[in-house]
Structure formats: structure tokens, C-alpha cells
């Protein structure tokens, strides 16, 4: 019996809420719009936060390597003096011989001077790798692959491939295209000794270094840097066999190569991220701000919705309706507005994120700066519907408490 009564009341509460919403279609539309803005502020800011953190991690992820070997704290902008792994090819070859490792190869980083005129050179970081791959997303030209797999054998002290890839910004400032020749060296004096052909334009490494970067065949970069003899590298990356456990192999290698830090790739991302606290802090701050800002906006909005109806609420209270019924009518309005505003906001999110990404790409060169994983949508929807309804219920409850005839006489 009392359940039936509750159902009757609930139905009446929903009817009352819809009547109130229908009464002022303009106000309802504006409220929906405001919720949409709150949702968008959350989803877009959170997307930016996620994107900022992930931009730094992307290069590592895409490399598709399971294990990273490094020594000392890794600094992505390391110059030639900070390639701490000695005999990198020998170590790589040793690792490759293991049954559980399918391949291993070194990566070196050096600052180099590049230019079309030996007297007018630009300084830029260069990454020395054994091969390029499909993820490079070439704007022009293509990549390279060194003939021999990594071996322990003799390596020529002079560059053999004499090819390199430039990022779009460096290519533009040097005024070079695919097929052009540039000078390269680790000092202004030695640059004139080496002429390389530009075979491709790609922003692949600059995307995760956060600065422009040239990509050079590893042995050529070592030759240019004069580290062929000591065979220096910044990292050795390894892939494990399909049937091997990445973490176990990493632990084995860590024991075997005690002088180096051996980490599975996700830990390596963490280790690199630790080196970039500012980026992490910015990303986290953006996500935090997004959520707090969205909640404040929503709370304000529904407090206003209840405030605007205070006379009606006071009258309903005076004629004997309970505070739950009053709070319920405001809560149902909050739910309806939250659903409408939330859905519109979520539909608009990918469109606006794509537009902002295009803008970010053209202005600062970062691609996919805003990233919208499912969690971002869930946060946005939860804000609109859950926070909207709860806040509406609470403000409705409070409004009912202060219902007095004085209010009805004003």
C-alpha cells in the first residue's frame, strides 16, 4: 500500500518536474547549454591532461620494444657525452643470443650540427637507431634499414649509409627536401667532413623528445660522433620471444647485467616520466582542474535552478508537501537537464577535440595533443548526471527547509 503511494508520489514528482521544465523552455535550454559547457570543460581539459602525459610516453610505446636497458638516469635530451652504455653492439648481440630474446639493438643520442652550408649549421639532437619502421609516419621520403643485423663484428670508423631523416621544422629552417645533401657533425669543425642525403621527413622522435630531432643510422651516428670504437649508446632495447615472460626476462637480464638498469617497457616509461615531473604535474593539474571546475560549475547551476523556484517551493511546502517531494522535483529536473546536457556535451567532445588537435598540430606541431579515452567520457557523463542530480536534490532539500510564508508575501 505504502509502496503504491510512493509510486503515485514519484509519478507526480516527475510530472511536476517536467511541468516546471516546460514552463520556461528558454531557461531549460540555457541550463542544458550550461551543463554541456561544464561537461565540455571537463572532457576537453581532461583530454588535454591525458594527452600531455601520453605524448611523452608515445615514442616508447610505439617502438614496441619489451625491455629497455639503460644506465644512470635517462635524459632524453642527452648529448654525446651521456651515452653511458659502452660496447652497445656487443651487449645487444649477447642478449640476442639468449633463447628468450628475439632481438636487441642499441639507441644512441647525440647533439649534432646540421646544415647545407658548412659555415651555417644548426644544432639539433640526433637519434641513432638501427632501423626505422612504419610508425614513423613520413611526411616525405622513407626510412632506412642497416644491412647487417646487430653483430659484434668490426664496424667501419666512417659512415657507410650516409643517409638521415629530418623533422619537418629542421627541414624547413634548413630549406632542404628529400634528396638534398646536408653536412653533419658533432662539432662545427667536423661537420664539413660528413655529407649525408636527406631521405625522409618525419616528426616521429621530436614528438616524444619534445624538441626537433634528426634520425640517423646508428653506426653512422657513432662514426660521426667518434664513438665507434667505444660503441656507446644511450639505450639498448630488446624484444622477447612470444612465449617468454617479459618481466621474468627483464629480471634475468638485470641480474646478468648488474651495471645497467634493465626495465620492462612500462617501468621504463615511468622512469622517463620521473625525469619529467613538470609534464606529469601539468597533466595531473589539468585533469584535477577539469573535475573541480566542472563540479563547481554544476553546483552553482543547480543551486540557481532551485533558487529561481524558491517561491513555488515555499508555496508547495506551505500547502503540506514534504521536503522529499520538493527536493524530488528539483532532482528530477537536475536529472533531465544532466542527461540532455551530458549527451550533447559528450557528442560535441570528439568534434571539438579533433578541431583543437588540428589547431595544436598547425600551431605547435604536436599531434593528437588531446586524447579522449573512454574514462574521459565517463567522467563527463558522471559529472552531468550524478553530480547534477545529487546537487539538485540537495539544493531542493535546502530550499524546502527555508520555505516560509514571508517568502510568499514578498
Amino acid at each position, binding site marked *: 500500500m505504502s509502496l503504491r503511494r510512493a509510486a*503515485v508520489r514519484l509519478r507526480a514528482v516527475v510530472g511536476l518536474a517536467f*511541468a516546471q521544465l516546460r514552463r520556461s523552455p528558454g531557461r531549460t535550454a540555457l541550463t542544458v547549454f550550461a551543463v554541456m559547457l561544464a561537461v565540455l570543460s571537463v572532457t576537453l581539459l581532461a583530454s588535454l591532461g591525458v594527452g600531455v602525459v601520453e605524448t611523452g610516453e608515445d615514442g616508447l610505446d610505439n617502438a614496441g620494444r619489451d625491455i629497455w636497458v639503460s644506465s644512470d638516469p635517462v635524459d632524453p635530451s642527452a648529448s654525446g657525452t651521456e651515452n653511458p652504455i659502452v660496447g652497445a653492439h656487443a651487449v645487444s648481440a649477447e642478449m640476442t643470443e639468449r633463447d628468450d630474446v628475439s632481438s636487441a639493438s642499441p639507441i644512441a643520442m647525440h647533439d649534432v650540427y646540421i646544415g647545407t652550408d658548412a659555415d651555417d649549421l644548426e644544432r639539433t639532437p640526433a637519434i641513432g637507431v638501427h632501423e626505422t619502421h612504419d610508425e614513423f609516419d613520413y611526411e616525405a621520403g622513407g626510412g632506412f634499414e642497416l644491412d647487417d643485423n646487430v653483430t659484434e663484428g668490426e664496424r667501419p670508423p666512417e659512415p657507410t649509409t650516409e643517409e638521415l631523416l629530418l623533422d619537418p621544422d629542421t627541414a624547413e629552417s634548413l630549406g632542404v627536401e628529400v634528396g638534398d645533401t646536408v653536412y653533419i657533425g658533432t662539432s662545427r669543425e667536423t661537420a664539413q667532413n660528413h655529407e649525408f642525403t636527406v631521405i625522409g621527413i618525419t616528426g616521429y622522435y621530436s614528438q616524444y623528445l619534445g624538441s626537433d630531432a634528426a634520425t640517423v643510422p646508428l653506426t653512422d651516428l657513432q662514426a660521426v660522433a667518434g664513438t665507434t670504437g667505444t660503441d656507446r649508446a644511450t639505450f639498448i632495447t630488446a624484444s622477447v620471444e612470444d612465449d617468454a615472460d617479459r618481466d621474468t626476462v627483464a629480471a634475468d637480464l638485470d641480474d646478468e647485467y648488474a651495471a645497467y638498469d634493465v626495465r620492462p617497457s612500462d617501468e621504463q616509461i615511468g622512469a622517463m616520466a620521473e625525469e619529467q615531473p613538470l609534464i606529469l604535474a601539468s597533466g595531473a593539474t589539468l585533469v584535477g582542474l577539469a573535475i573541480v571546475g566542472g563540479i563547481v560549475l554544476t553546483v552553482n547551476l543547480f543551486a540557481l535552478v532551485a533558487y529561481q523556484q524558491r*517561491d*513555488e517551493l515555499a508555496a508547495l511546502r506551505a*500547502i*503540506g508537501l514534504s521536503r522529499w517531494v520538493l527536493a524530488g522535483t528539483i532532482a528530477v529536473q537536475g536529472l533531465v537537464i544532466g542527461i540532455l546536457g551530458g549527451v550533447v556535451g559528450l557528442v560535441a567532445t570528439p568534434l571539438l577535440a579533433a578541431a583543437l588537435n588540428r589547431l595544436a598540430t598547425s600551431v605547435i606541431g604536436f599531434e593528437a595533443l588531446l586524447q579522449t579515452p573512454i574514462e574521459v567520457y565517463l567522467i563527463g557523463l558522471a559529472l552531468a548526471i550524478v553530480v547534477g542530480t545529487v546537487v539538485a536534490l540537495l539544493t531542493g532539500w535546502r530550499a524546502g527547509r527555508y520555505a516560509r*510564508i514571508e517568502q510568499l*508575501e514578498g
Partner: protein
Amino acid sequence: MNHRTPQQATASDGRANDGGGPTAAVRLEGITHEYGASGGRGRSSGDRTVTALQDVSFDIQAGDIVGLEGPSGSGKSTILHAVTGLLVPTAGTVELLGTDLTELSDRKRTRIRRRHVGIVFQRFHLLPSLSARANVALPLVQAGIPRSTRRERAETLLEQVGLGDRSTHLPGELSGGERQRVAIARALVTDPDIIVADEPTGELDTATGDDVLDLLTDIGRERAVLVASHDDATLSVADRVVTLRDGRVVSNAG
């Protein structure tokens, strides 16, 4: 003096019946109220309290229409608040059908108000988004009465106040007098024992006001009616007028 507990007083149908003499529909006994004392009992007053009522006592029997007269600030509104249970006075007792409202929780006072008191406001306070019929039916929502029954009761009452043909109109489509009649129908929909009207003709012209007063007199035959007003014409329908000055009763005459 009647000293029943609220439980006894509201037993079964919620109406008082102690088997003795007739119980007053409304009985105010030594009511004092100070604003600024947080409106509750047992709170000490600070320097900035304003005494709205001082030792006010009177009662209203069923079938009586009692007028409440006095200048602004004399305490009329405070008495209406106290009688409807929207306010608990600082001291004294407010008995409705033998139940002392001052001893009840906010929730119980709301229930008593819903069952036994109908309120008519100066400014009608109809919900603009609802039809006349839905406005009249509103107080029945809380009791969980099904919609078809609510509609039936509302339509019957609208017929009684002469607005049978206006039941689907929105308040905005009605004249001031019609709106007040809708409000009176709403006050009657729970079949209350007590009607409290605050300046019921304050927003109406004389002729329309007279119609509304006729209606109030008509419904007052079976109920206790308390009408607060400045207006002599309104007070003239009362069997008795309680005059207030500075929170005190200065006359209580028929």
C-alpha cells in the same frame, strides 16, 4: 485545560475527541515569539531580538470566522505561521484540534498542516506551469492519492467555486479573482478543519473581493476560519475580530 499528548489527540482519524466539551479547532495559549532567537525554543535571545508576539491567547471554534486585524508588524503573520505550524513560538502552546504543535517535529507539523489546515495566500501562489485542476489537486500528491481520484476531487471543488469550465486553464489565463478561487479550492481539497487566509482580497478589486469573501463565508460554516487583513470589508464577514498592536491582543470582540 486539555492536556492530551499528540498521539492521543491524533489517534485514528487524527481528530481530537476527548468525550468532554467541544475542543477548540485552534487554541493559542500564552504565545510569545521573538525573532532573532533562531525561531526555536530554549534558545537564549541576544541583543538584536525583536518581540513579535507577547502573551497572545485566543481560540477559534469550528464554524467560527475570526478576523485578525492590526497594522504591519503587529504580529498577524507570526500568528498565521504559528497556527499553520510553519513556526514554533518561543513560548506558549498552539493547539490544533487538541494537539500541541509546539511539541511536534517539523515532519509531524507538516503532516498536521497537510491534513487539517488549508492556506489561502494574498498572492495566490499557484504553480504557473500547472493547470487550475492540477494546482487544486497538488496537496493530495503527498498522501499518494491516485491521479484519477485527485482529478475528480479537484474538478468537484472547481465546480463548487464556480470554475468548472476553467479546470484546464493555466493560472496565467485566469483573472485575479479566478486565481484566488482556484487557491481557495486548493485549500479545501484535503477537506481541512481550519482555513487560514492571509489578506485573501489584498490583490483583488472590490467586486471580485466580495465574491471571494462570499465563498470564504460559505465554506466557513463548517470549519474554523482565520482571516488576517487590513481591509474592513474583509473583516466584516468575521464573527469576531482579534485586534493586535505591537504583538499584543488589544481587543477580541464580536
